[in-house]
């Protein structure tokens, strides 16, 4: 039950205005795709949602409360690269979120807690099709597998919003289609709210429930610096996609549960 509200967001770097007057309300359980030409500030917008950057003006509310000004567990993220830890195995990468949560000093779990965590991690690994690889290091995985691992890792911490920064941009077309199917599956099964930045329009429409296009209204060289990008189009995607755990009002009933679905079987 998470709504994200962006209220009159402006972002300036010195004299340069990057974004102006961004007003978006993201309902719980929606999948928002942010598109736009490169340099239009869509990644800047995502960084503000992450808490890595602050808006010059305006505010972002998460469930009505102003966003913490640094990245934290309530916003999960998958980047295009460097999203997983190279020194941890596949299983270790998924476990680490739970270990951060439950073991403040050691950052490691033992005994029954560890067993429970491993069980949950294995269920997630199964749902992203990485069950057979849990003892490998990320360097031994393909790009697509690394991104699937990054998704499982982010979902393990049960974030309120999942932010994706061109997560599938570096993948080969065939692999990308496979990961798209998986992403859709995860969104349907786990009842999460997603904001994804992409420059791939077909990806935006395939995965999103709503596509928001950012654009500079004035792009002449002498005006460029003084006018930032703003929302040019806000398109609900047809036909509407439905999540599994939605009640009548369109809000998720319960926090996302771990559903073990072997997606790799569904894909092939």
């Amino acid at each position, binding site marked *: 039950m998470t709504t994200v509200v962006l209220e009159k967001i402006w972002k300036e770097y010195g004299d340069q205005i990057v974004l102006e007057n961004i007003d978006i309300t993201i309902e719980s359980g929606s999948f928002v795709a942010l598109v736009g030409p490169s340099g239009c500030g869509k990644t800047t917008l995502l960084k503000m949602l*992450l808490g*890595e950057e602050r808006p010059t003006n305006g505010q972002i509310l998460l469930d009505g409360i102003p966003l913490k000004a*640094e*990245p*934290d*567990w309530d*916003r*999960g*993220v998958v*980047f295009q*690269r*460097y*999203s*997983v*830890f*190279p*020194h941890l195995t596949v299983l270790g990468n998924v476990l*680490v*979120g739970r*270990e*951060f*949560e439950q073991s*403040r*000093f*050691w*950052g*490691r779990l033992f005994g029954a807690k560890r067993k429970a965590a491993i069980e949950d991690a294995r269920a997630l690994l199964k749902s992203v099709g990485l069950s057979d690889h849990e003892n490998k*290091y*990320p*360097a031994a995985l393909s790009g697509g597998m690394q991104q699937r691992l*990054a998704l499982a*890792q*982010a979902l*393990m*911490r049960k*974030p309120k919003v999942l932010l994706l920064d061109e997560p599938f941009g570096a993948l080969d077309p065939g692999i990308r289609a496979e990961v798209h199917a998986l992403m859709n599956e995860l969104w349907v099964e786990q009842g999460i709210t997603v904001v994804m930045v992409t420059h791939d329009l077909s990806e935006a429409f395939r995965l999103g429930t709503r596509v928001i296009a950012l654009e500079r209204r004035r792009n002449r060289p002498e005006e460029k610096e003084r006018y930032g990008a703003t929302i040019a189009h806000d398109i609900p995607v047809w036909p509407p996609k439905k999540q599994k755990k939605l009640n009548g009002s369109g809000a998720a009933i319960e926090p996302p549960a771990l559903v073990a679905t072997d997606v790799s079987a569904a894909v092939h």
Partner: protein
Amino acid sequence: MRIINRHPSRGLYILLASLPFIALAVAYSIGSYQRLSVNPADKILPSVTQMMAAMNELMFVPDKRTGDYLFWSDTAISLWRLACGMGISIALSLILGVTAGFIPWVRALVKPFVEAFSLIPPITILPILFIMVGLDEASKITLIAVGTAPLMLRAVALAVEEIPREMIVKAQTLGASTWQMITRVVLPQVLPKLIVATRFALIPAWIFLVSAEAIAAVSGLGYRIFLVRRFLSMDVIIPYVLWITLLAWLMDLTLAMLQRRLFPWFQPEQKS
């Protein structure tokens, strides 16, 4: 075919690699033979037999004054000094290097000072150390630490800064505190690079060890070399230099092996 695209076979590689060593040994033997056949009392290029006799004395005959087997006691004390100095450097570079690389406040506090400090030629500090901490072990160990710590500290801090920003953000979105990030994300990724830094730092460490021992000591490999120099005892100096080289090589080999064993996920880009 261009020569840059032609690679020697394995056997040829070994042959080529051993060629300079063989050439040096042969050149020495010829020179030594010629000098000794003219003057059997010549001390400049002793024969292998002469070197073995001299080393036999140092290795297996107890010293008349102290009762020590000098070669082994020299080796032990030198390695002890080296280990203490490097130990201090490693501890400093881990604690200060990691925090300076990770926490902006500590970086502001530590980095400019270390950069200024690392410009001091360490050997010029030696007289200061002799005056302040005396001529015993502390001054030699401190010299090794002073000579290697800034180098290693900067390498560790750089390794921390090289961790992709995305990974640190990711750790935060998984709810990690600064302490958890240091212990679970930063340290594990820095340790293999610390071993690389240690391998590089061992080179200056040996230089400072031998220098300190040469200037003021009553034991140690460097002390012995500079002591027997007065008698032109090349039959001791040459084996000692070879021994130090062997020790340095073994240490490097051990560290390289340790790095591969402990950190299987870490593949450095460097070539052998």
